[in-house]
C-alpha cells in the first residue's frame, strides 16, 4: 500500500483493526436481534415523542420498487437517519409520504405499521458490516 498522507496511515490502521475484527470476532451475533438484513431503524425523534421507532424493511420495498425510485427520485440519502424525515414532511407528500398517502400505499393513520420497533432501539442499518464490527450504543440504557 502506497501511503500518501498521515490520513491514509490512520485509515490503514483502522482497516487492519477492522480486518482483524472480521477474522477474530467474525460476523458474530449482535445480541438477540436477528431481523432482516437491511432493515433500517429510524429513531431520530420517535423516542422523544413517545412513539415506537420506525422500522423500514428494505426487502419489502425492493420487491416493489427499484432503488432509484426512492434514492434518486424521492431524494432519500444513503444514510440511516440521515434524511431528517418527520410527520409534517410525510403528510406534505415528501419522503415516505410520496407513496404512503392512501393512493399508492396505505396512508399515515396506520401509525403502528411503521412505528413498530422496540422502544429505545437506536437508529441503525440492521446486520450491516459496520453494525457487526463496531460496538453498538446501548439501547435506551437497557441490556
Amino acid at each position, binding site marked *: *500500500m502506497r501511503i500518501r498522507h498521515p490520513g491514509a496511515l490512520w*485509515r*490503514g490502521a*483502522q*482497516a487492519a483493526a*477492522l*480486518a482483524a475484527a*472480521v477474522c477474530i470476532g*467474525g*460476523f*458474530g*451475533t449482535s*445480541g*438477540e*436481534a*436477528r*431481523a*432482516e*438484513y*437491511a*432493515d433500517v*431503524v429510524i429513531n431520530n425523534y420517535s423516542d422523544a415523542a413517545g412513539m*415506537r421507532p420506525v*422500522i423500514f*424493511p428494505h*426487502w*419489502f420495498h*425492493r*420487491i*416493489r*420498487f*427499484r*432503488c*432509484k*425510485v426512492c*434514492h*434518486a*427520485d*424521492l431524494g432519500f440519502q*444513503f444514510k440511516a437517519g440521515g434524511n431528517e424525515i418527520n410527520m409534517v414532511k410525510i403528510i406534505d407528500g415528501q419522503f415516505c409520504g*410520496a*407513496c404512503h398517502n392512501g393512493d*399508492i400505499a396505505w396512508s399515515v393513520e*396506520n*401509525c*403502528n*405499521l411503521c*412505528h*413498530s*420497533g*422496540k*422502544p429505545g*432501539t437506536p437508529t441503525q*442499518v*440492521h*446486520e*450491516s*458490516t*459496520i453494525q457487526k*464490527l463496531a460496538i453498538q450504543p446501548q439501547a435506551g440504557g437497557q441490556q
Partner: protein
Amino acid sequence: MNRILRVPMAVLGLAAGTLLATGPTFAQDEKGKAVYDKVCVACHSAGIAGAPKLGDAKAWAPRIKAGIDTLYESAIKGKAPAMPAKGGATDVSDADIKAAVDYMVAAAEGGAGEPAAAAPAAPAAQAAPAAPTKPRPAALSFNRLLKPASKRNPPPPEDGIHDPDNDGTHALQAPLQVFEALPRSNAGNRVDWVKSLDNNLIAPRWDRTDPAAAPVVMDLNIVREVKGSMPDVVYPHKQHTAWLDCSNCHPQIFIPQKGANQISMAAILLGQKCGVCHGKVAFPVSECRICHSKKKNVMPVKNAQAQ
C-alpha cells in the same frame, strides 16, 4: 332453526371430543411443536432436501409404516442423505426429539394430538425431565459464523427489533412468505435479488406511479486490477443500472473517470465506495468472489524460466 342450532352443537361436540382426546397428551404435543418450530421447521416445513413436509400424509406414510422406533432413530442419529442427527441441534435431548417426531407423525396422520401417536410418546414424557435442554452460549455453538437455519428470516414479532406488544407488528408480512419463491443466496437476506429480477420473479417499478416505465440498462463491465492474490474485480454496470440511476453513484461516490477512484476493502468495510450499499443492503462483503471474479493472468513458471 334446527339446522342453525345443529352447527354450534356440532362444534361444541367436536371441541369436547378434541379436548378429551388431547387432554392427557396436550403438554407433550406442545413440547413436540416447540421443538419442531425451533429445529425441524427449517427443512420440514418447505420440504428442503427431500424432507417430508409437515402434514404431508403421502410422504410420511412409508416412514410411519417402518415403525415409530425407526423414525426415532432416524431423527436422533440422522439418516442419509440429508437428515442430520437431531436435525443439527445436538443440544436438544432425545426425549424432545422424540416429542417432535410424535408431533410430525400426528400431523401426517391427520390430527395433531391423536392418541395413537401419543401412546409411544408416554415413556419419552417420563424421560423428559431427566434430560433438561440447556441452551448453549452462542460462542460454543457449531460454527458461530453461520446463522442456524432456525434463526434466518424470522417473522417480525420474533426478529428482536420489532416490538411484539405492538399490534401493527403482527400485521406485517413475514419475509419467508415471499422469499420461499425466490432464488436463495448465502448471505444478506439469503435471496439472490439480481437473479430474482433477471428471471422476472419480481417486478419492482422503475417509476413511482408508472408500472410500464423501464430502466435504460447500460451493459459495460469495468475491470479493476487488484493487488495481491485476489482475483481482479469485474464491476458490471448492467446489474447496477437495472436497479439504480446513474446519479445514485456518479459523481458523488464514484468519479466517472478511469483511475480517479481509490477503492480499498478498508473503505468498503467502513461503508464508503461500494460499501455504501454492499454490506448494508446489497450482498455483503463476505461474498468476496462475486466481485473478485476475474482470474489474473499469471505468467506460467516454465515460460518465465525460458525468458
